[in-house]
């Protein structure tokens, strides 16, 4: 089991209404989960809980055998660096570092040795040719940036990859190429993927499709 939620409840600060209330939900190793739902329904909150940025108000979030609420903030940061990959909708990279340096920075936090070779291999596999490796990330096209983000997210060979609408800034052609490369890499690394999107046309590519409204009992609005 990669991740499991148990009687999870989460609300922000002093708000009385919870954003999330999930009695039971889990993801198995190697699964690719497509999670959809309208915006504002708590998808990002869920990802932040799974990444250990947020802690549940009550209940348990277990990821890769660790109970998030039992780790210190510092331990969670280190654990996230080592075991979790994250790809956002846009602006995934440190703009003033090159594609290669972005990957190596992630490897630095994840304490992965010999990161240069692995980063180069991933960039190549994701269709970023050598000439682009040393360019500042800000100079790459959005499609290229998203692919570098995947390389960056996978450089530490994480067991879980969280993707938050990574294709919404891409046009159809770029999107399809991106999806193919992403799923290929996830498969090759045997990484579980939780992919959040409201683009339902992508659903067929995943091993499991979930609507957040179905698993979340709280209905924030």
């Amino acid at each position, binding site marked *: 089991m990669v991740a499991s939620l148990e009687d999870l409840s989460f609300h922000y600060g002093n708000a009385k209404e919870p954003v999330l209330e999930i009695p039971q939900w889990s993801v198995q190793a190697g699964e690719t989960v497509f999670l959809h739902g309208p915006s504002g329904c708590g998808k*990002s909150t869920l990802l932040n809980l799974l990444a250990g*940025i*947020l802690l549940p108000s009550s209940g348990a979030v277990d990821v890769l055998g660790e109970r998030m609420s039992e780790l210190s*903030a510092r331990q969670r*940061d280190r654990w996230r660096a080592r075991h979790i990959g994250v790809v956002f909708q846009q602006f995934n990279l440190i703009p003033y*570092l090159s594609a290669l340096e972005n990957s190596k920075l992630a490897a630095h*936090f*994840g304490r992965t040795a010999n990161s240069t070779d692995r980063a180069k291999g991933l960039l190549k596999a994701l269709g970023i040719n050598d000439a682009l490796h040393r360019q500042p990330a800000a100079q790459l096209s959005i499609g290229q940036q998203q692919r570098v983000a995947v390389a960056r997210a996978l450089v530490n060979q994480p067991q879980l990859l969280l993707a938050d609408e990574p294709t919404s800034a891409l046009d159809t052609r770029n999107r399809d190429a991106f999806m193919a490369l992403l799923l290929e890499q996830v498969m090759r690394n045997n990484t579980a993927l939780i992919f959040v999107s409201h683009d339902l046309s992508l659903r067929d590519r995943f091993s499991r499709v979930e609507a957040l409204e179905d698993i979340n009992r709280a209905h924030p609005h």
Partner: protein
Amino acid sequence: MFLRLALSSLRSRKGSVLLTFLAVAVSVFVLLGVEQIRHQAKSSFGNTVSGIDLIVGARTGDVNLLLYSVFRLGNATNNISWHSYKHIAADPNIAWTIPISLGDSHKGYRVMGTTADYFTHFRFGQNKLLELAEGAVFFNLFDVVLGSDVARSLGYQLGDNLVLAHGLGSTSFSQHEDTPFRVTGILKPTGTPVDQTLHVSLEGIEAMHIGFEGGIQLPGGPAVTDEIEPGDLTPKTITAFMVGLKSKLATFRLQRQINSYQHEPLLAILPGVTLAQLWQMMAVMENSLRLVSALVLLASLLGLAAMLLASIRERQREIVVMRAIGASPWFLLGLVEAEALLVTLGGTTLAMLLLVLTTTLSSALLAEQFGLFVEVGLPTAHSMGALLAVVIAALGIGLVPGIAAYRCALHQQLA
């Protein structure tokens, strides 16, 4: 990794970073420059006279005696008799004495009557003797040896004749016109009041005052040089005298002896001690200079903090990415501090280079024009302390944007 990241980050914001860097460089330059000048002023002040164990004059204040005998500032309250001088100079502990006689001037510059011993015993700076740039020490009655400033600003050459004025005003109505002096020597610059002094023999002073006994020239009796007989020229009084001892151990005993001299009220001072007292009086000015330079530095460091704080806002996205790949909020605080440190170290290095460059380029000019001897601005132990304080202050002020980055990192969610 850490420093490389900080450097890349700074490079990506070249414009604002460069301006802040220059502001820090200028303010550190001011700070170091003030330290340098302060240090130089103090040491050149303390170096005005050296190798002299006691200065003896008529009884007055310590500082006053020092001011008129060494700095040629103000007037002697009273003279001392030649007899007392001779009596004290005969003490077996005394190696040598230099009598000096002040009271006349030339175009605003003081004239000092002394003996040729002055040029062999008077020392300044690190025990340096006076040196002649050209010519020779006075030999004849109406020879004069000029300090370097006097020669330069009045444009005198060897062999020129000049007339000394009675009294100290720059426009005296009473000139010793009958007894012109001839320039026989010009001294090298020393950076001390010696540069502003005209040196003549004690006998020369006596000779030109013949006929001036009442303070003004008496009509009908002009002194003709050939009529003067050597025996008449022993001075009756002198202004003060400097003493060199055979052994320093006798200093305090002799000082007490002179201060309690029976026949005339005298005062003996230790020039080093009195110089230090005098410098103490200038501590206010010294401290206000330091305060101003510290405030200039503070202003530039606040500018640095403001620049970094403004950058945190435009770097929120970057902070989210850092958090996603596992950077702790502490890492971001450290990153901002590293940037503050790099700008400060860079600015400090530039400031030190500027200081070395400006002091090297200007030292010749300053020595020539102002008699100011500036050493090349290599960092001293003291300025290193100041630089350390700069770095610590930068890190302290860098906490403001650093904590902003920390808080941003702590509260920002991945999205």
